[in-house]
């Protein structure tokens, strides 16, 4: 476990972002502590994807500052490279490489970025495919998989890089409840090993089980942030209460 003096994995100060004239993020402040499991929820179009994509330098921003592992995010190539090496990302649309098999999807970055030899890369890739329970699909191409299978490949590909911080954009949207449970267990195990995680999800059950802290966004702002027990049982804001009222009973 890192000492007290190590910098926060992510620190965001007064972040603002526009798409043209539309303000997608507005004065966002956020500090993630090491090993923290953050869940971001909120209505569709509230800026959740934009927020985590900005941390990874996939979106530019016009106001504020972002620090990742103490490094200030600028447009310098070395900085961006360093930040991306310590941050992993699972995309809402998966973005698998369609020309590679499932195994190659996971092994390619290990070879090119982590500089593992081919056999070691394949071995580690296979280990993570086993973690998400699709080792038998390793030789298929993404187009031959069901939606849930594709999503698990995307998760395995990001995890195999063993980053310090993981960003997940709706990692369970295409998964069935069984699979959600398994991905939850996988992520909890990784958190136990000290990985910091931020997860965008609409799955309130997942949020409750997984989160150290739940963030609620609307209109590009953080409306409420609280521990899950408090968030679900006693939300402070009217907007949050309205949102949670709509959650469907399930069992």
């Amino acid at each position, binding site marked *: 476990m890192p000492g007290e003096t190590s910098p926060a994995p992510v620190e965001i100060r007064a972040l603002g972002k526009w798409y043209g004239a539309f303000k997608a993020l507005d004065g966002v402040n956020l500090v993630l502590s090491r090993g923290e499991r953050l869940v971001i929820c909120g209505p569709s179009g509230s800026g959740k994807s934009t927020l985590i994509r900005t941390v990874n330098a*996939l979106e530019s921003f016009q106001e504020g500052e972002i620090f990742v592992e103490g490094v200030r995010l600028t447009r310098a190539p070395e900085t961006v*490279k360093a930040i*991306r090496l310590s941050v992993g990302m699972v*995309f809402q649309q998966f973005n698998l490489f369609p020309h590679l098999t499932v195994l190659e999807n996971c092994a*390619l970055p290990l070879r090119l*970025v982590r500089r593992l030899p081919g056999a070691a890369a394949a071995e580690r890739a296979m280990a993570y495919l086993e973690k998400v329970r699709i080792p038998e699909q390793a030789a298929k191409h*993404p*187009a031959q998989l069901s939606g849930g299978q594709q999503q698990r490949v995307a998760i395995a590909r990001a995890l195999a890089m063993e980053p310090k911080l993981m960003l997940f954009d709706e990692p369970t949207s295409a998964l069935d409840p069984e699979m959600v449970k398994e991905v939850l267990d996988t992520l909890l195990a990784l958190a136990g090993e000290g990985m910091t995680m931020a997860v965008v999800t609409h799955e309130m059950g997942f949020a409750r089980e997984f989160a150290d802290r739940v963030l609620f966004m609307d209109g590009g702002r953080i409306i409420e942030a609280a521990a899950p027990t408090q968030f679900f049982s006693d939300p402070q804001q009217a907007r949050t209460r309205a949102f949670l009222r709509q959650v469907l009973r399930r069992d």
Partner: protein
Amino acid sequence: MIFADNVDQPPLLRRPIVFIPALALLFLALLRADPANWPLLRGVLAAAGLGGVLGNGLAAAAVCVLVGANAYVLLRLPVRWQVAMVWVELTLALAALFVSFDLSYAFIRRKLWILVSIGLVNTLLISAVSIVLAFILAMAGAVAKLSQNGVALGVANFYTSLFRGVPLLMQIYIIYLGLPQIGVVVDAIPAGVAALSLCYGAYMTEIFRGGIESIPRGQWEAARALGLSPGQTLRQVILPQAMGVIIPPTGNQFIAMLKDSSLVSVVGVWELMYLARTQGQSEFRHIEMMLTASMIYWIFSILLELGQARIERFFGRAHAR
């Protein structure tokens, strides 16, 4: 249908309602046609003592029966056989057209060896070297055109504009006659290869640029987020996918290059077309030589096409669902 959809289109031509009127029209057209233009059949009929309108009618009927029977069989074959049959029939028709020129095959036989041993060898040599160089230029050009560096962008823009916009012949002149003006005397073949490479490089730059741009942004984002460098992303993620888009027009360029390489003959290179032209010129046997050269070009184009089909299959293997 473009993508196999689970629908069988009705076999239009197999229906009598299409079939019979088509044949009737053919019959009428042939009846009114000038019999001078189908001498073979007419010859047979004349030998049998049939002439005039009756002979014409009989000949037209015979042709219609042949065409009809052919269509009947053709439409009932499996797809592979249909393709093969169509090729055989069209090739025969083309051959018949040329036979009607009464060409001197002796002349062709006499000149064939020169065409192949000197002309074809030079053509293949020049094309092969030029294609490789053009490929490299095109890669560099495409990356420059997509970069945000104004100087690279400007140079690449100017390059593609000039070398696509100016006739290849002029480019050969500039290199062959212009470079000596600044003290560099280049030989014929290097000058030709340089001009061809630059010209085709410019065309292929545009093809590569289009191919790279056609890959969805998400692919680039995923690769960069995983830590791949821009170069790695391009080589390992973007280009392999862009290949599906790049290959068909690049195949075009390869095939066109084979024939455009003939322009280097202006500086005195004895490539295939030059020999065909000059060999024909001295005895006014252009058609013979042109035909021979064309057949040689066609054979090599078909080889290139087969190669292209293989490469497309290789890069298309992930396109299942």
